[in-house]
């Protein structure tokens, strides 16, 4: 899995591609932990090229969201989530923990 991070004026954009499962989720976790460890709590995760996400991936995002929202210092938002992934997210009721945007412009502008 490839993960890139781009710094914007008001937030960081993380883009992952491929599968986020028990094998690849630790890589994403490391990238997100580095950002929060450096005091970056306003993050957009661009999921336009993520075609599979298991619960391991969701837990990484949940843990990151906990850190970002603490003391109201920021938030992790999601952009371009594929329908199938969105369905599984809503099926378990995890969708309510994230703002999901249909495009990057809206996601970045939310900060």
């Amino acid at each position, binding site marked *: 899995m490839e993960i890139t991070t781009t710094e914007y004026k008001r937030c960081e954009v993380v883009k992952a591609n491929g599968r986020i*499962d*028990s094998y690849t989720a630790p890589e994403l976790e490391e990238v997100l932990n580095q950002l929060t460890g450096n005091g970056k709590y306003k993050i957009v995760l661009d999921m336009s090229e993520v075609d*599979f996400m298991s619960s391991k991936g969701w837990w990484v995002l949940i843990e990151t969201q906990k850190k970002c929202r603490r003391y109201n210092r920021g938030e992790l938002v999601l952009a371009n989530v594929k329908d199938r992934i969105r369905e599984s997210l809503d099926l378990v009721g995890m969708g309510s923990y994230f703002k999901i945007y249909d495009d990057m412009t809206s996601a970045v502008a939310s900060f």
Partner: protein
Amino acid sequence: MPTATFPARFDSLAKIGKFIERATKKAGVDDSTTYAVQLAVDEACSNIIEHAYGGENKGDIQCTYSIANNRLTITLRDKGQPFDPEKIQEPNFGAPIEELKPRGAGLFLMRKLMDEIRFEFNQKSGNVLTLVKHLPE
């Protein structure tokens, strides 16, 4: 019945996903159902690696599928430790995020995504997990 055996490691999950994709293509289901079945199997296999075997590289996972009687049946076999699925608490989704704990989500997803799930544990032959998706007539 098509069968494949994979090393119980997390880097096997993508290959297991491809094997399951072949099963769903043969069954003629739509993309949404394919994804649901792949996700359920992925969650099951992750649990086998993490909990039944207690970590990677401690055994294999044998996957088999069959399509009959309007059912796609996937069987996963492992020689790890058995567990009681009734003892696994459902995750507390809906609670405030600070209270969320990362346990039980895989089993919860499997139950939601598949139509039938059966766990069988046998000292000799090991653990057998059967996942069934009902197919449209």
